[in-house]
C-alpha cells in the first residue's frame, strides 16, 4: 500500500496517519502508522525495512576478521560494543585468551562510548520535546569523547578497533591524560544537565506517568537495557554474564521501578555516572603486556554454533554464528536490542496523546539502523 492511500477515516471513525519515514523525531527512517481518535492514540504499528542493508547476509561472505567491521554500522553509537561482540564470539569459538591489557582497554573504550551514547540521548531527548539548547551542552562533552576516539582509534563513529584476539593497535601516548581531562570536564558540567533539562518542571511533566512499561511486559516483549531496568528488571549482561573482565569491576546496576519515561531518563542519567566510575577505576591500572592474542592468519572456526552477548548502550546484543568449519560464517544472526525495545512502543503508547508518542520514542532511544540491519 502506498503512503498516503490510507490517510483517511476508517469505519470506526479513526484517523490513520503515518509518522515517518522522514520525520525529525524518529531519529532515522522509522515509519509508525498511528490510528487516532481525536488526539488519542488507539493503535501504533511500526513499519520497518527502510534502511535494510542485509548485514547478516553480507556477513556470510566475509571472513571472521572482516565480519565485525560492518557491525559498526548497526548501532553506530555503540560501535565499540558491536565490534567487541563479534570479536568475543570468535574468541569463544577458538578458545583464545585475550591479554589483560586488551581487556582493560576494551572496557574503557566501551564505557566511553556508552557515556557518549547516553549524552546523545540527552541531547536528542531535549530536541524531540522542543528544547534546542540542551543539545549543545551535551555535544560539548560528546565532542571531547569523539576527539579521543579519533586520536586513539582513527575514526569518530565507525572505529573498528576491536579484532578477534584483542585490539588492533596500542594506545596513543597521552591517552590516560586525555581521558582524565574529559572525565573532569564531564563531572564539572554534569550539574548543568540537571539545571537545563532534567530539573525542568515542564520536561518532568511531559515524562512522568507517560508510557508506563510494567516489569511483566518488559519481560514478555524482550526489552533490555535502560528501558527494562527502568521497569525494575535486572538485565545487565555485564553483571549476569560478565565478559572481558567485567566481573573484576565495581559498579552498580541502576534499577528503578517506575517504568515510565521519567524512570528511563533517570536510569540513563545515573548510568552515565556509573560509566565514569568504571573508567576511573581502570584508567590508572592499565596493565602492561600484549594487546592482541596470536591467531592464525585465516581464522577458521570449528564446526558448531556459537553465541555471545554483550551489553550495548541500549541493551543486550547477541551474536549467533553457525560455522561449517570454513573461513566464513555459514549463518550469522544478530539479536539487536533496539528491535525488541521498539516493540514496547505500540504497547505503552496506547491511550496517550500524540505528543506523548514523541516523548516515548525519545526515551526508548531507538537507533533505526540497528532495528533493520
Amino acid at each position, binding site marked *: 500500500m502506498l503512503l498516503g492511500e490510507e490517510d483517511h477515516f476508517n469505519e470506526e471513525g479513526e484517523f490513520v496517519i503515518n509518522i515517518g519515514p522522514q520525520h525529525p523525531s524518529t531519529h532515522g527512517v522509522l515509519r509508525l502508522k498511528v490510528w487516532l481518535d481525536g488526539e488519542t492514540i488507539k493503535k501504533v504499528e511500526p513499519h520497518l525495512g527502510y534502511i535494510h542493508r542485509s548485514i547478516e547476509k553480507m556477513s556470510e561472505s566475509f571472513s571472521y*576478521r572482516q565480519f565485525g567491521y560492518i557491525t559498526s554500522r548497526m548501532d553506530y553509537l555503540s560501535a565499540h560494543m558491536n565490534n567487541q561482540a563479534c570479536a568475543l564470539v570468535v574468541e569463544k569459538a577458538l578458545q583464545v585468551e585475550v591479554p589483560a591489557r586488551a581487556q582493560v582497554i576494551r572496557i574503557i573504550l566501551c564505557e566511553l562510548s556508552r557515556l557518549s551514547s547516553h549524552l546523545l540521548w540527552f541531547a536528542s531527548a531535549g530536541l524531540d520535546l522542543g528544547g534546542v*539548547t540542551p543539545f549543545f551542552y551535551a555535544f560539548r562533552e560528546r565532542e571531547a569523547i569523539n576527539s579521543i576516539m579519533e586520536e586513539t582509534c582513527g575514526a569518530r563513529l565507525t572505529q*573498528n578497533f576491536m579484532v578477534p584476539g584483542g585490539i588492533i593497535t596500542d594506545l596513543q601516548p597521552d591517552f590516560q591524560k586525555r581521558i582524565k581531562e574529559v572525565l573532569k570536564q564531564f563531572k564539572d558540567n554534569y550539574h548543568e544537565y540537571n539545571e537545563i533539562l532534567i*530539573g*525542568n*518542571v*515542564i520536561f518532568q511533566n511531559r515524562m512522568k506517568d507517560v508510557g508506563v512499561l510494567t516489569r511483566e511486559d518488559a519481560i514478555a516483549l524482550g526489552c533490555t537495557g535502560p528501558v527494562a531496568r527502568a521497569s525494575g528488571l535486572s538485565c545487565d549482561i555485564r553483571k549476569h554474564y560478565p565478559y572481558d573482565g567485567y566481573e573484576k569491576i565495581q559498579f552498580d546496576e541502576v534499577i528503578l521501578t517506575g517504568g515510565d519515561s521519567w524512570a528511563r531518563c533517570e536510569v540513563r542519567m545515573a548510568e552515565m555516572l556509573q560509566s565514569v566510575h568504571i573508567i576511573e577505576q581502570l584508567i590508572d591500572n592499565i596493565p602492561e603486556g600484549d594487546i592482541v592474542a596470536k591467531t592464525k592468519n585465516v581464522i577458521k572456526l570449528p564446526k558448531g554454533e556459537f553465541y555471545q552477548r554483550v551489553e550495548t548502550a541500549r541493551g543486550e546484543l547477541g551474536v549467533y554464528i553457525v560455522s561449517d568449519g570454513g573461513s566464513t560464517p555459514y549463518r550469522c544472526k544478530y539479536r539487536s536490542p533496539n528491535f525488541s525495545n521498539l516493540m514496547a512502543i505500540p504497547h505503552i503508547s496506547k491511550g496517550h496523546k500524540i505528543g506523548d508518542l514523541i516523548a516515548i520514542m525519545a526515551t526508548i532511544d531507538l537507533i533505526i539502523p540497528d532495528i533493520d540491519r
Partner: protein
Amino acid sequence: MFLKEYFGSIFSSIKSLLTGMKLTGYYFTHHNKIITEEYPDNRAALKMPERFRGEVIMPHDEKNEHQCTGCQSCELSCPNGSIKIITKQEIQPDGKKKKRIDTWVYHLDMCTMCGMCVEACPTTAILMGNEFEHSQYEKKYLKKVLNKPGSRLKDGVE
C-alpha cells in the same frame, strides 16, 4: 486548594525555566568558554590526529621507491573490494623473474576506511592518510593509482 496547586505549578515551572536561562545567560556572557569552531574558516589551523583514517596512501621515498611487494594481502583483507592489484613479471639484474606490482588501483568510492588493508600489510607499504576532503564532481576521479609512475620496489623488502 486547586488554585494553590495551579499557581504553585506555574511558579515552579517559571523557576526551573529561569534556572536554565541563567545557565544559558552565563555562557552568553562568557565568550571564552565557547568551544565551537567554524569548519571552513579554521582550515589553516585544522590539524587532524595522526591516526585519523581518511584515505589509503602509499608512501614513496626520495628515490621514488615504495615497499609494496604485490603480495595482495590487502586485496584479500578488504571487505568492499576497493583494492585491485595488477602484477607483472619483472626481470631482475641477475636474470631471475620476480613478481612486482604494475598498478595499485584504489577505488576511493568503495572504501569505508576500516583500515584492515593497513593492518594486513606485512611490509607497511600502505598507510592511512589524514586527508578527508574527497569531494569530486565526477566519480572517475575517485579511482586512484597509488604507485607513482616509474616507481620501483625498495631494495631489501621481500
